[in-house]
């Protein structure tokens, strides 16, 4: 393998300020479910900028949530 072990890699959400993970009332599992739904939404309407924006907001929120939970 070409990969070098690097346990506990720093995440993007660690490195950059993101959305306040606590500002979304949904649970982490609900956010994960919504993320998958957002992917399906983009696949269903790939040129819909609203679907892309929704997915972008979700992944930013979930990144912040997961980083906060890992901290």
């Amino acid at each position, binding site marked *: *393998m*070409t*990969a*070098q*072990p*690097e*346990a506990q*890699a*720093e*995440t*993007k*959400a660690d*490195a950059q300020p993101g959305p306040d993970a606590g500002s979304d009332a949904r649970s982490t599992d609900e956010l*994960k479910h919504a*993320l*998958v739904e*957002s*992917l399906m939404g*983009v*696949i269903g309407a*790939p*040129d819909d900028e609203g*679907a*892309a924006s929704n*997915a*972008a907001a*979700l*992944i*930013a929120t*979930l*990144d912040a949530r*997961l*980083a906060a939970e*890992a901290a």
Partner: protein
Amino acid sequence: MSTSSATTLDSPVLRAIRTHTQADNPSSFLALNSGNSVFTVPGADGVAVYRRTGKYLVQFGGPFADPGSYGRLLQGLREYARSEGLQLVSVQLQRPDAEIYREAGFTVNQIGASWAVHLPDFTLRGTRFMQLRNKISRALRNGLKVQEVAADAWQDALNEIDSAWLVSKGEHARPLEFLVGQIGGPAQEHRRLFVGTIDGTPVSYISYSPVYGSRAGWMHDLSRRIPGGSPGLMEAINAAAIETFVAEGVEWLHFGFTPFTGLAEENELPGRSPSFQWLMHFLWAEGEALYPAQSQLDYKEKWAPHAVLPEYVAFDGPASIASFAHIFRACNAF
């Protein structure tokens, strides 16, 4: 800088993938697929290969470039995408590419892995391969004959196999492209084709593309078979090809990239998106409708690969679900 749509063999692409192998991309020959666009920068030794789909520019691999030109090509492609109002996403990056992209500010995540067998260490002997040997024997008992052929003389037969295969995949099935191989065209003279026939009728084939770099050899690429035929057709063809390659002293047989496979925490780079990382694991477990990663890996693992090579996606900005989806759109998946 300039872009062109032709990836003919008088283009710099073939020279670049043969010469600039620092990333050891086992799929680099896919850069020659028709339908790809090629990006170059005056004075830079190398190319970047991409497809445009919707408002996205999907790059295949990193630049195939001299180390002194790599950064210029990456930056040039980045600027070109922005000037065109396109979002850049790069896929099938190898670890050396991934580290450079991360340094350049991209968000980089593992997206899957490619798998390879070291042929000098390969054997079909032993209990581990008993089931595989049985499948191969069954195909041969059913009359399968395997031969290496020239593609142009077998084009009609290949078309018939392709048509039957596509029908079997369902009403809405579409043949994938971009990140899968092709047969025919000016690049065909560099590929190898093994065809299986039963009673003289072509029933299946596997195409192999050349692999350059430190794990040089061949990549098990496009493979198709008539549905409902004998078990073990693909396995028997691949075993015959392996026999040929071993006799020629070939070192590596690659099985190519499978998304969502080989995911491991130790493969991730600093700055990754934890959400995207979670999504890759979810799609491995539940993403059959998007891509049948588990069945693809089942086939590759039959051959007990010696190397698992992580592959990466890089987003020019935060990780993006829409960019990820457009990788599949560029592949004609939807």
